[in-house]
């Protein structure tokens, strides 16, 4: 008989930690797996050990008490655990070159989100990275690019990055904003909802003002391309009126919003929903995180990107309902304890349409220039892929067998969305009719020896 957990939670970010606080708090044996070494997720990355806690403002510092509570809970935390397959009652993962399988009565997926990869010519050059990557380096290692830095993109996180850079006097050569000015107008119809979280809203306005006053900002920048210049990088772009300009940088940070990491829920064959405004797939789940697959729940940004505050509330709700389902609390107690979290979610949900509309991705940004490498792993350019698409390829999976995008080690995490956008555009197919690449186990390349030499009992393999 193998050890069967009550609950396994994948992901120790805000949602996963809060779910674990509920399940362990109500006596359920809980295992939490995360790929990082410390709990916190990306938003509270390394907050338990970071030298930056006092310097990065209250949003980041808010993670510290949560991580402390989580560490003090009865949850068993496995760090450095890479989940490579999943079923409603079991999870397969690799840790330090060895694979394990753990069984549970219930599984909660709280794997969060990632930055939307938007291919540009030159985005593969060393020195170009996601602005989320720079954020991770700052939180976990107190590192910032020496500058000059050029920021390109759209979304609240790019403003946050710009403010961090100026806070530490890192020279910023320019901020190329790729969002459309017209979005602001469209977003005004949701302005009332934005007032549901006045503190958060004003914080955002403050970031925007600081960015605009401290840095050279370009609105509606387009045709961005990056190339090597001497020891550094050169960023070429066109302004709103089509004027060509250039900036010199040592580091370029890119960011085009955040999308749910859906590979794991797609692998589990959960039903997904297409978010038309922000253009990404996310798993379909009810208020209690129940997906279309019984026994499999989801919480936080995996189930739709709404940020850390909503993720924590969702984690609590999902945890509470799992406790109810497994019989450790009655329905009435679940409802009582859920109330404050439901209020938070309601407020977050009223703000979200404003943010989604304001920072909606610009369609032209999603159609890469012919010489941009789209599939980084297989080194395939948009031009090469369009040729195959125009020859008669109508789905990401089909293109995969025809031209090999998605066959690299990242298994299509980076190129999947871009490839779907290109096919949709070329053939005039609505993107919601084009499923992404099929997700298959193992979720990332495993060494054969690891499978041969596994601790997984043969009947579970």
């Amino acid at each position, binding site marked *: 008989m193998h050890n069967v957990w009550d609950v396994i939670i994948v992901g120790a970010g805000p949602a996963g930690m809060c779910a674990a606080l509920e399940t362990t708090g109500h006596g359920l044996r809980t295992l939490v797996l995360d790929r990082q070494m410390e709990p916190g997720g990306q938003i509270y990355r390394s907050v338990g050990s970071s030298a930056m806690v006092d310097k990065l403002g209250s949003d980041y510092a808010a993670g510290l008490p949560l991580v402390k509570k989580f560490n003090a809970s009865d949850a068993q935390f496995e760090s450095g655990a890479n989940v490579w397959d999943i079923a409603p009652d079991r999870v397969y993962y690799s840790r330090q070159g060895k694979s394990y399988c753990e069984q549970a009565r219930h599984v909660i997926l709280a794997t969060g989100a990632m930055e939307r990869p938007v291919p540009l010519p030159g985005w593969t050059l*060393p020195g170009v990275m*996601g602005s989320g990557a720079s954020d991770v380096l700052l939180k976990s290692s107190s*590192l910032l690019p020496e500058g000059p830095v050029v920021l390109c993109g759209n979304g609240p996180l790019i403003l946050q990055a710009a403010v961090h850079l100026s806070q530490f006097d890192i020279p910023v050569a320019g901020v190329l904003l790729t969002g459309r000015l017209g979005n602001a107008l469209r977003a005004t119809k949701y302005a009332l909802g934005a007032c549901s979280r006045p503190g958060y809203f004003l914080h955002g306005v403050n970031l925007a003002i600081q960015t605009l006053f401290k840095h050279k900002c370009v609105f509606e920048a387009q045709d961005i391309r990056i190339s090597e210049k001497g020891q550094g990088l050169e960023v070429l772009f066109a302004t709103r009126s089509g004027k060509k300009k250039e900036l010199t940088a040592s580091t370029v940070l890119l960011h085009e919003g955040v999308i749910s*990491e859906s590979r794991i829920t797609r692998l589990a064959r959960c039903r997904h929903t297409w978010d038309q405004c922000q253009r990404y797939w996310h798993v379909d789940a009810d208020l209690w995180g129940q997906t279309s697959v019984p026994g499999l729940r989801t919480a936080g940004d995996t189930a739709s990107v709404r940020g850390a505050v909503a993720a924590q509330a969702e984690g609590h709700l999902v945890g509470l309902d799992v406790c109810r389902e497994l019989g450790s609390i009655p329905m009435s107690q679940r409802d009582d304890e859920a109330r404050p979290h439901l209020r938070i979610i309601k407020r977050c949900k009223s703000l979200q349409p404003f943010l989604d509309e304001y920072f909606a991705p610009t369609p032209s940004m999603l159609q890469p220039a012919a010489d941009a490498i789209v599939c980084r792993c297989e*080194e395939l350019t948009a031009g090469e892929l369009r040729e195959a698409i125009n020859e008669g390829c109508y789905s990401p999976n089909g293109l995969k067998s025809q031209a090999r995008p998605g066959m690299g*080690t*990242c298994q299509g995490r*980076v190129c999947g969305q871009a490839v779907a956008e290109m096919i949709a555009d070329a053939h005039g197919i609505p993107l919601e009719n084009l499923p992404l690449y099929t997700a298959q186990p193992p979720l990332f390349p495993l060494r054969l020896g690891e499978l041969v030499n596994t601790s997984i009992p043969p009947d579970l393999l």
Partner: protein
Amino acid sequence: MFTKVSDSNNKKITIYFEDEPVEVEEGMTVAAAVLEPSHGWTRTTHGGHKRGAFCHMGVCHECLMTIDGVPNQQACLTPVADGMKVYRQNGEPDFHQEEGKHA
């Protein structure tokens, strides 16, 4: 290329990047630790182009390196350890390294 904006109290240890000793702080990932000495590139593609970590959170696989003799390791998910030997991965992974070519 990158600069430290705050000091932590973490213990200093030594890793070897392409056989050169590098002093780093415990708790860092290999990808962060080699940013400086590697000039931001961690591997070359089969086409021979330089690449460096793009996401630093395990998504992009651009930071594949040979770590302690094992090729194809995601440097951004691997914590540094004293005496660790880290090499850039050039083109396809060289599985002979695993047999101790660099050991």
